[in-house]
């Protein structure tokens, strides 16, 4: 119990004094996760929507596969990406290991199935609703996908935020592919792991509270920007 109070105090102190290291790792956390979120959404949302409107032979299998991939242990993803990006590995020439880019790659792999699965579910429901009308109006496949994405944007945002949540708290994969190098690839979650390992629970909790605060702020910002609570528009 004492540690939790100590943690809150530590968090408060770090924020109020604009602790330079805290700034650095927080910005890096946001940079890695938001970039991964953007890339993953650009892949997952059209994919989820396409799977909702297009019938093809292995569709049910693909959908099940994506749902299953949501359960991929992040550490395993990290190991695989490490092996691929290692200098002795196939993509070693790209020199991406132990850089924020490698962390982004790992996180994209982890969160794309999450976003795609949720997006697919809501697009499927919306498609069921719009199906007769859009076919009756002679729409092309592209027009259908765009209409669904636009009209379903609020649910797609939820899907994206689910991906954000998964990514911002992730530590296993980025620890392996990033290396937690001070001033280069250290982020909030890996710093928390480090401090926990050193036994400094108060600082670790403090960083944890900062992380939670950051996640809340991002969610609030996105909801404000998209005016989801404004009466009548949606």
């Amino acid at each position, binding site marked *: 119990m004492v540690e939790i109070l100590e943690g809150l105090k530590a968090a408060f102190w770090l924020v109020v004094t604009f602790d330079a290291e805290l700034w650095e790792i927080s910005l890096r956390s946001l940079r890695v996760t938001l970039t991964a979120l953007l890339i993953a959404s650009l892949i997952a949302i059209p994919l989820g929507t396409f799977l909702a409107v297009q019938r093809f032979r292995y569709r049910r299998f693909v959908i099940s596969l994506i749902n299953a991939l949501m359960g991929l242990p992040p550490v395993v993803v990290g190991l695989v990406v490490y092996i691929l990006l290692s200098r002795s590995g196939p993509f070693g020439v790209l020199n991406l290991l132990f850089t924020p880019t490698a962390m982004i790659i790992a996180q994209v792999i982890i969160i794309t199935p999450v976003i795609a699965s949720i997006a697919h579910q809501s697009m499927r429901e919306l498609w069921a609703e719009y199906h007769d009308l859009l076919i009756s109006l002679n729409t092309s496949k592209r027009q259908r996908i765009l209409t669904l994405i636009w009209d379903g944007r609020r649910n797609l945002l939820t899907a994206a935020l689910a991906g954000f949540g998964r990514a911002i708290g992730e530590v296993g994969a980025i620890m392996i592919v990033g290396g937690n190098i001070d001033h280069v690839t250290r982020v909030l979650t890996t710093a928390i792991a480090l401090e926990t390992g050193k*036994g400094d629970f108060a600082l670790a909790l403090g960083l944890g509270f900062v992380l939670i605060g950051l996640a809340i702020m991002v969610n609030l910002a996105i909801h404000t920007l998209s005016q989801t609570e404004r009466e009548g528009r949606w």
Partner: protein
Amino acid sequence: MIRGFLTFFVTIWATVSTADEMRMAVTTSFDSSGLADVLLPAIKEDLDLDVQLLVVGTGQALRLGQAGDVDAVLVHSKAAEEAFVAAGHGTHRREIMYNDFVLIGPATDAAGLAGATSAADAMQRIAGAQPLFVSRGDDSGTHKAELAVWAQAGFDVGAFGNWYREVGAGMGQALNTAAAMDAYVLSDRASWLNFANKARLALLYSGDPALFNQYAYLPVDPNKNDNVRHDLAIKLETWLTGPRAEALINGYAINDETLFVFNATHD
């Protein structure tokens, strides 16, 4: 408001370019000691070199060296280091400094280590009293040192009962577990001094040369791939075995206790 957000995003994406860079894999116990915080700025000053430290277990450090993903390795496990060089992964092995391991346990000291006359004697007392004992269990340098000390006293840990707990984790984690369980544990002195959560634990035995912990520097073989910065690794090695490093290492203290003893031979 939109402009504010855009500025924010641009800020977090901006990156800073750096000077000469090399990557070194080091053990968690080295990082826990805090010595890196003293050495790295001095290295930057003298050599304009950014040393990126990957803090991992001894096993993983050597594995990274083997893959050629780092330019040098600094660990404390002689047998593993010699095997590393013999296999051709490293060019040579250079001793830099040593610290020592200490036996930690609950202040009540059920095993009576306070009166031990040697490391072997201490281990015999523990094996006799069978109090809870936490082992790293992660094939790290510290773990191997612990096994060596048991072996020297004539014990095979495989035969130990339930009182011997392998946690498979780093030093800080192991100390946390020992603190929570009121158990005995073998730790490196630096980690112990830096450990913030001592609870009811105390330092019970130290000083036997059998508990000395030698750190060695291994430059990775440049033939592994085109990216290994062997030149920088050698540059760093020269500095680490030079006078400034000697002064900094010998002078490094926690609560007025020095931790390391510089023992590199000059070129």
